[in-house]
């Protein structure tokens, strides 16, 4: 059969097949350019389908259970969420921020607090931008996150309803971070939402973005966010993400970053939540002296699945990339790390280093790591390393001979293992929150064991 091969490589998604039903209600439905973009996107998705494990990049993350869920687009009108509900799901914020709260992907102005912005800084909801100033959005939307080949980005483009547009003008250094809080609220039918975050950091500007993804309740929902970031020459972008979705959540995120000369991008992703999650980051080092740092931590238990997939393209000479992912897998949880570094022809003096370290706390836990260096230039410094291990018996014994009980000793070692990652984070508030996340995970683990 002619179609069998294609079927093997993709998983049908009923939800996407009903696109025509949902399209009229999507924001910007009357904008011809957006309509075209969405049309193209859904056509692309239909051609690709949801990637099956036959697709190389999805070999270790199987979306077939996701495809079986009867997802519906969000009808959020009557989901009551109070500020207290939001606060209960997050650690208290220890400093000012420009704060936007999304419930099932839709901006909730009554829960948000963006406040006064410096002149020419734009932080606004995507749906609102599509209504108020679509012309501002048109040149940026979908430019970094290209549709090419990525089914879930295409799906996001077809269905995106809301999100955020962030534009920081030339030489503006935005002091406080922008904090985007995405709260998943599963209902009678499992909701799916596709936030789109667009960041433009203009020449020499600085901006810090924090994403918090949290879930209320045990039910199933699907968050499929796409973040596209463009850093113009000399811009500095900090991007920090805490993924603490509910246990029934699917979280499939994709971030695309384009870095111009002398710009810097630092990303840190901490994942403890969701039943199945994948965080995919793609960075194009497109101007000389661009620098990117990708850090990630994950702590999983039960049957949780976490996938960190990254691709860094050294397109021009003299760029630097650093990448460290560390995680802890307990029970029957599974981890995936796929890190691809491509040094393109002519990209001399590229300097790329990648490290993945995983601690397995149980015999049933598993990690698949796939580092990939592709180097087409001759004068480069690139390295990668992957280590998988268990807690060290000698270290455990040493701690126990000092009166520390076995559970506490394990906790200290795990905390130490993850804590080393905190040293890499350039933003103190995020560092503290990362450490607090580790402690909280450990105390939940202790409680469960007790």
């Amino acid at each position: 059969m002619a179609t069998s091969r294609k079927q093997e490589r993709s998983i049908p998604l009923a939800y996407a097949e009903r696109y025509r039903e949902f399209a009229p209600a999507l924001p910007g439905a009357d904008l011809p350019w957006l309509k075209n973009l969405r049309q193209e996107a859904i056509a692309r998705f239909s051609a690709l389908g949801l990637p099956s494990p036959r697709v190389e990049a999805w070999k270790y993350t199987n979306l077939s259970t996701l495809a079986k869920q009867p997802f519906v687009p969000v009808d959020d009108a009557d989901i009551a969420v109070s500020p207290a509900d939001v606060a209960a799901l997050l650690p208290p914020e220890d400093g000012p921020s420009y704060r936007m709260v999304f419930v099932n992907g839709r901006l909730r102005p009554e829960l948000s607090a963006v406040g006064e912005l410096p002149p020419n800084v734009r932080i606004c909801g995507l749906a609102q931008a599509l209504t108020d100033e679509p012309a501002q959005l048109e040149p940026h939307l979908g430019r970094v996150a290209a549709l090419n080949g990525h089914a879930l980005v295409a799906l996001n483009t077809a269905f995106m309803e809301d999100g955020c547009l962030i534009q920081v003008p030339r030489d503006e250094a935005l002091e406080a971070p922008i904090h985007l809080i995405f709260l998943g609220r599963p209902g009678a039918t499992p909701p799916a939402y596709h936030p789109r975050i667009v960041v433009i950091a203009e020449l020499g500007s600085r901006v810090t973005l924090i994403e918090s993804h949290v879930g209320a309740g045990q039910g199933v929902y699907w968050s499929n966010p796409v973040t596209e970031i463009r850093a113009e020459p000399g811009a500095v972008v900090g991007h920090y993400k805490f993924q603490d979705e509910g246990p029934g959540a699917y979280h499939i995120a994709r971030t695309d970053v384009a870095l111009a000369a002398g710009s810097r991008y630092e990303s840190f992703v901490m994942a403890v939540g969701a039943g199945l999650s994948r965080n995919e980051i793609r960075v194009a080092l497109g101007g000389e002296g661009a620098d990117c740092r990708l850090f990630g931590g994950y702590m999983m238990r039960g049957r949780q699945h976490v996938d960190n997939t990254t691709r860094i393209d050294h397109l021009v000479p003299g760029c630097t990339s650093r990448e460290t992912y560390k995680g802890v897998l307990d029970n029957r949880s599974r981890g995936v790390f796929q890190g691809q570094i491509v040094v393109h022809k002519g990209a001399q003096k590229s300097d790329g280093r990648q490290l993945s370290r995983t601690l397995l706390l149980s015999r049933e836990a598993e990690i698949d790591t796939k580092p990939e260096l592709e180097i087409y230039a001759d004068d480069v410094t690139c390295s990668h390393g992957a280590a998988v291990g268990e807690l060290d018996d000698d270290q455990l014994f040493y701690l126990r001979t000092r009166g520390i009980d076995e559970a506490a000793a394990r906790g200290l070692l795990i905390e130490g293992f993850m804590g080393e990652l905190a040293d890499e984070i350039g933003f103190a508030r995020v560092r503290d929150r990362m450490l607090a996340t580790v402690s909280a995970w450990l105390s939940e683990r202790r409680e469960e064991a007790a």
Partner: protein
Amino acid sequence: MLEIKNLRVVVDDKEILKGLDLTVPAGEVHAIMGPNGSGKSTLSYVLAGRDGYEVRDGGVTYLGKDLLAIMPEQRAREGVFLAFQYPVEIPGVGSATFLKTAVNAVRKHRGEKEFDALEFLKLVRAKREALGISEEMMRRPLNVGFSGGEKKRNEILQMSLLEPRLAILDETDSGLDIDALKVVADGVNALRREDRAIVVITHYQRWLDYIVPDSVHVLSEGRVVRSGGKELALELEQNGYGGIGLQAGAAV
């Protein structure tokens, strides 16, 4: 305080301790000497409760209790302390955090009040200054990047904070420079008390000039083959193990 009777221990199908007898009364310091590979560290690990040692025969009584029946952390809380021949490096775990966790775990068990951060800081400062340990070292991960001598000092710092009843010092002198030898010995001697016992494992008589033992035992091939007063150490220094009828350096 410590009574070891006919202890036979097997590691990986190999018998290391072959019927070892040793009694250490409270208030005394006992030195254990013996060729490389004779089983000194093995004995110290068995006493501290390390996994992987199969006790085939005999037993150990500590303060009237069966020591081998309890968990390592419990032994520590009951007052057993081992200063390791090779202290373990633990990346990511801060020295100060570790010390506080350990000391409070032990104090809690003894029904003593746990220290708050400030009290603890003061206590540690006094003890570490006496041992010549810098504050900077305390900020580093446990034993990571410490020199050999610094690791040994750190062991004694832990000992002085945990205030054990039975301290086993496995070659604490090796790696210490001449000045440190005295400083660390002072730290050990400060612990000597009527209700405490110290077992000092060493290869060198010089260490025993600083920590003067009540008895000296020679361990060979997993057994105590000779015991005596502190003169025995001098005799060994002069004539080697050959002088007392053992093969010199009889390491397996």
